[in-house]
């Protein structure tokens, strides 16, 4: 019997090709490249990779998280192309996956964080939905920070929320900057396991740059964008979209 199990295990490994951890790490690399290339087909391919990964029958929460993460990148992509309708489809699907993620793993701070961020994006597309999603988004990010107070991505999300929320609804550029700078500090010591989300090291400067631009400081914005490119020279979001906007 023992031998049968060994053979079956071997057979499964042969058929599936790799273990889920390796598979997730490959998927992350795939998505990273796709975002660098800002290529729809590659992003879709990375999303499909994680969707197939659900066949492992384990770590469902993490596979769902990465599906949602791919969706989030696709939302940015479609918004940049002016295709709001498709963006909303991917946003809704991402929210659906993340609601499952936080049911499956109640301690996964990045799950709450990304969900908060996606609700924020929903408000960005349809501002009047703030009355519904505003408090939900802030509750989620508070919960995430309570779980992992040292996670820099969460402060980046909270900072972005503070930047885009109108002042009368509690938004503040100063608060956004404070949160972004806190994230910058935390990124210096951020060293998550290769399986876990690790995005943001370069993006945090992209956000700081956007904030400076919003506050009317183009030189500082340019400085931060360049800083982002120092960390990730292939950051096409900064290179092809943000930097060219500064005259």
């Amino acid at each position, binding site marked *: 019997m023992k*031998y049968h199990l*060994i*053979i079956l295990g*071997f*057979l499964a490994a*042969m*058929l*599936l*090709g*790799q273990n889920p951890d390796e*598979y997730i790490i490959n998927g992350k690399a795939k998505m990273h490249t796709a975002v660098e290339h800002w290529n*729809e*087909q590659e992003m*879709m*391919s990375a*999303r*499909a990779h994680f*969707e*197939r*990964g659900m*066949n492992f029958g384990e770590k469902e929460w993490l596979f769902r998280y990465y599906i949602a993460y791919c969706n989030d990148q696709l939302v940015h992509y479609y918004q940049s192309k002016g295709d709001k309708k*498709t963006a909303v*489809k*991917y946003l*809704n*699907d991402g929210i*659906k996956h993340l609601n499952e993620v936080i049911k499956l793993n*109640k301690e996964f701070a990045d799950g709450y964080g990304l969900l908060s961020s996606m609700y924020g994006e929903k408000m960005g597309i*349809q*501002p*009047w*939905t703030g*009355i*519904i999603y*505003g*408090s939900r988004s*802030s509750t989620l990010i*508070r*919960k995430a*920070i*309570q779980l992992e107070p040292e996670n820099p991505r969460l402060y980046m999300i909270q900072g972005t929320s503070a930047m885009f929320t109108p002042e*009368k*609804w*509690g938004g503040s550029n100063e608060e956004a900057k404070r949160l972004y700078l806190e994230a910058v500090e935390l990124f210096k010591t951020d060293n998550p396991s290769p399986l876990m989300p690790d995005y943001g090291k370069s993006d945090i400067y992209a956000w700081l740059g956007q904030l400076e631009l919003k506050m009317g400081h183009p030189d500082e914005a340019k400085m931060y964008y360049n800083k982002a490119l120092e960390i990730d020279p292939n950051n096409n979001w900064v290179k092809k979209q943000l930097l060219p906007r500064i005259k």
Partner: protein
Amino acid sequence: MDKMKYLISLFLTIIFAMGQHPISVTGVIKDEMGNGLAYVNVYFMDTLEGAMSNKNGHFLIRTHTQGKRVLRISHIGFMEKDEILIVDTSSIHMNIVLEKSYMEMDPISVSAGSFTMADEEGQTLTSLDVVTTAGAAADIFRAVQTFPGVNQVDEGAGMYVRGGDVSETTVILDQATISHPYKYESDTGGYFGMIDPFLLSGTYFSTGGFSAKYGNILSGVMAMESLDMPSRSSITIGAGLAAISAGGSWVLKPDKLAIQFSGNYSNTTYLFKLNGGEERFDQVPTSWDGNVSTIWKYSPFGQIKFFHYSNVDEIGVNTESPTYNGLMLNDNHTQLSNMQLRHLTQNGIMIKSSLSKNQFGQGLTLGNIDKELDDHLLKWRTDISIPMENKMTWNAGFILDELKTSLSATFPKDPNDFSPEAETEHFNVDYESMHYGIYLENEYQWSQKIFMTAGIRTDILDQPKQQVWDPRLSLNYRLSDSQFLKIATGIYHQYPKAQYRDVWVGNPDLMAMSANHYILGYEYKSDLTDFKAELYKKDYSQLLLDDETVNYSNDGEGYAYGADFFLKGTLPFISGWISYSYLQSKRKELDHLELVATDYDINHNITAALKTQFNTLNNAGLTYRYTTGKPYTPALNEWNSERLPAMQRLDLSYSRLIPIGTDGLLVLYLSVSNLLDKTNVYGYFYSPDYSERTELKSTHGRNIYFGFNLNL
């Protein structure tokens, strides 16, 4: 050595198999219009083999694995599809058409006449909605009264659903029936609902056409689910002008074992001192209630929940009537204990079973009326839901309950004469009965556009022995992404209350009362808007009618018809809902020996419940209600021939949220109810010859209430 040979040969077999030429699975994926679909994920469910379609919808997968296999085709915006393939040595070509998918949280499975409430997106009313609805006094029953199809006949929380009496709506918590669901219980229901909205995780409310799961009820269902496993320990304390409360949850083992508890003490002395009206009470309304629940998750797929609730309330009102000026004293006590098991088997079968005991006691005195009631309801209910292939689900269940009622009462022979010297009659009722119910129901999604629920139930009563059969059907048809047409119909039965079945003062041969429901509805639902319009008709038969020889007969009859409209939406800076109900309800029932308008026949009822946020931390709400007058009887045998004046009421509320730390929240609130200080008349007390009358009016004029709630 033999084992080693076996291993080597098996290994070589696998290697050989892997070395075979791969088999090609190719195909083209199109939408219903015949256009090729790009970036569709196509993959086998037993391996990681898969591909993504190209811009024209073509795909190619090379696989080494033969046999019967499932190929999944998945693409956002389209229905996921599984194709079963027999993969052998020859290549396979497929033409696949994907159907457009509709919103995930669509209401296709929510039948006509129903609302669902939970703290989830897409639900009609969340706990926060209940608490922030002005005038609802954080009471779920009062919040539901703002829905169409529910008439408010006085200032209480009684639910009169689509021309049905308050006793024709059943209230269920975790499968257990709450036989007396109101605080300060009265003939029209009670002043508040028994269960705090913060003890609930979700509520289903139906104004008719409900499924075969619910029996022994004629008009409406409110089925609530108590809170699930808390994610963290917490403490809540609150205090207001008339109440103090404390509660908390204690997680003993995360996601395994937790205890939740709460307690409230309410005393309205200071409320009436501030707002006036204290002189109307000899004993101001006072209540105690407490709740404790334990949840044990014995596996990821099963849990046992124990829920216990106790309530004691009393009130002493100075009453004025043409025959009696004096005190009406009412005290009630309720106990509900429920043990519920929920288990999900590996093949997706959900089993829910609950054993509950509900005890209610009431003492009431008013003039010559003296009533002592004691009700015991022991109930075992089990529901099983079996998902099948092809989007079909079978639901089945049974209910077994034992009711013991003990009623000792003295009533005036003339129902309008409460004077101590009036002639009275006394009776004692000791009644016991067993009720059995069983149902079978099929939910089937015929296509993306049609969802059907068909079921049948039978209920058996042992005293007097009788059996009724209730077939039910609901059909939902999707007109477009966001528009639905709904039809529901069915037969509904309800056994008369114990006192009507008593040998001496009732009729032990009474049969179940009956109603046929017919509902036609339309719904438009999007992310931010929900609009419902429904037309309905209910035909009643076998209603109870006063009878000189046998006390009561089943010769009563009646009907109700009407239209309900509900619009919930969100605009910049304002959200809320508006509901309008039109109703015509007539019955020949009890002492109304002809077909006349019912006591609760309120023809027009409009409610607007609006909320706004000044920013995320400051909320304000407004609720306005207008209802046309309900009927009353101005003279002997002229049953319900006149109508009371129309009633209107405006309530305001304001709350400020103050976050404390990372997870704590302090809520400060202020409400002004009946802002316009309207004194509404809800009825008259008449003298026996109808020559004199006094008004039964609002107990509250303009009323201010404030308090806080702290959650840590």
